């Protein structure tokens, strides 16, 4: 009985957190962020996903104060990363967006031991559906997504991901999954300009 009581209390608090964290998703990339995402879409030549919600305190303004990595490879795959680094022990908030134009397979990364390669995203742990996207949740990820929980999905023959680091203040996989669910719900497509 006491277990039920604790579980019920937990459920209430989790509910409050979920409701408090979310806001109704916009239907378009926020004005202040749109330019950067449009430029990215134009450069890689495929649609990219612009978030309309980010975990506090981040925004998703490419070239803004939280941008950490902006990288486009020769194969047009991209990594856009936003980071708030808490120097005074407040922790890190770190979100990565990736896209692999024309590629459906999960890429491979150098293995942690020996001269091996491993999938860059591994240990699938369920799915999330929102916004017309069915994303797979991956718990073990490599490179810039190490220590992150990651969502991956396909759209028109391309692979896309969004991930967030499991670290204080978002210090459990459960909380990160909640954030990722909000991110997924908030994504809007930015089409490349016809050229």
């Amino acid at each position, binding site marked *: 009985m006491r277990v039920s009581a*604790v579980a019920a209390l937990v459920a209430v608090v989790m509910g409050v957190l979920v409701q408090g964290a979310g806001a109704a998703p916009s239907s378009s990339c926020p004005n202040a962020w749109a330019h950067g995402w449009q430029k990215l879409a134009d450069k890689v030549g495929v649609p990219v996903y612009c978030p309309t919600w980010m975990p506090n305190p981040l925004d998703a303004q490419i070239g803004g104060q939280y941008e950490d990595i902006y990288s486009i490879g020769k194969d047009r795959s991209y990594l856009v990363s936003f980071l708030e680094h808490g120097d005074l022990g407040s922790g890190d908030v770190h979100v990565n967006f990736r896209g692999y134009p024309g590629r459906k397979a999960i890429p491979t990364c150098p293995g942690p031991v*020996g001269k091996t390669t491993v999938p860059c995203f591994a240990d699938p742990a369920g799915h999330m559906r929102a916004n017309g996207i069915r994303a797979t949740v991956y718990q*073990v990820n490599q490179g810039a997504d190490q*220590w992150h*929980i990651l969502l991956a999905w396909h759209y028109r023959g391309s692979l896309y991901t969004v991930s967030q680091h*499991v670290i204080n203040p978002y*210090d459990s*996989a459960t909380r990160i999954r909640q954030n990722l669910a909000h991110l997924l719900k908030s994504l809007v497509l930015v089409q490349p300009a016809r050229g």
Partner: protein
Amino acid sequence: MKLTRRRFIGGAAAAVAAGGGIYELVDRFATTPKRPVAEPAGIPSEQHLINLRTTSSEGVEVVVPPLHHAVVTAKLDVGDLPSAQRQLEDVLREIDARYELSPAGLGVTVGWGIPYFEKHVAAQAKTHLPHDRRAQKPVLLPTRRFPSDPSSTILEDNDVVFLLRSDHIQHIEDARAKIAALRFLSVTSVRRGFAGGGFDGGQSLPKKMAVAAGVPGADLIPDGAELFLGFTSTQKAGLGPGTIANHETLGYVDLRSGYFRNGTHMHLSHIAEDLEAWYLNFDFDERVLTAFRPGMTNVRRNAQTIPQGPSQVSGTNELVRQFHRTGRFGHSASIQATSRLLHDTVGVDGTHYPKGTAIPQRADFNTLDNPFAFSADPARDRMDKQPSAGVHFVVFNPTGDDFERNRLAMDGVLPGGTKLSLPPRNRGQGFNSVLTTTHRQNFLVPPRRHRSFPLAEL
């Protein structure tokens, strides 16, 4: 103050568990396993033996450990040794009379450290302490650090240790209070924990307890996991059977006067576990080959109980070959090189032990202690109130050297001088990269007849 999920759950757990601490939740989270009724006349001479039932987990026979565990360590402040011996034995007999020797009752194991033998019975010890004839060393060795231990690992110097095991926390608390009330004992630490609770389906006890305590990575533990790291470790075939861990059984030991016949060696350590590193950096396949052995294929995804019988044992040659091929060795595979019998063996009592039989008898249990539930020296023991995932590792071996062989093998140091060379705590080195040993000590566990102040009557 912002109410985080961890603070909330921690607060709720602390509130409901006031007085008994987080471990009282074990009673709420676990149903008591069905247990056989112990035979009153069947009390063994060995203190370390307790009759445990088995069950089937994913088709593998596994031992069901007692739900609750506690370890009490102490130093002695004693003038009249024979009187203290009588008092302790009286208390232990009172406990024996109250609780049958089974998980439904209580298992009590008393071990004694080198400081006791050196300070209190030095002359008798010279004559009677058993000697490891295989290693040409005393059975009870000074506690040491191992290659993967950090320099911060504390080598303890307790006189005595009490291991208490039961399905009922009240039984443990009753015994702990009776023992701690003995005036000549100065308790240095109390360590608590839990095990099992998940074999009958649903969420296991470690998962529930870790989530309730809000330890990092708790929500990544698979639901049915017997232990925090996700794999079952009490496969019957992976634990030493019967009296195999007695000093005398395998012939490793010169018992000298025979005073310690039916005794054994016990190693106690506390190991912190980094669950987030384990579950966020090692995918399932890598967790399998890290916990067991490289090249292990065809393991069903998310399986938790992996067979560990004699046919699954890795020999040294195979271990070395795999290491050179893959750059890693598994936890079980490396230890099996020393912890399993290399050939069919007949014990001194005529029992036949086939090749591949396990020798050590483990009694480890998960804990949320950080690192202990109580310490008489919180600064030295680096006590922290924040719960932390870990294991109080308890293992019985015929000798201290036998334990050391296994522990060194875990670090890639094999008997005969073979060394699987990797930097300490390297990711290729089994579990080591996610484990940190904080404390260690060796003890001698006398037979039940001499459990109270051994040698003091001589």
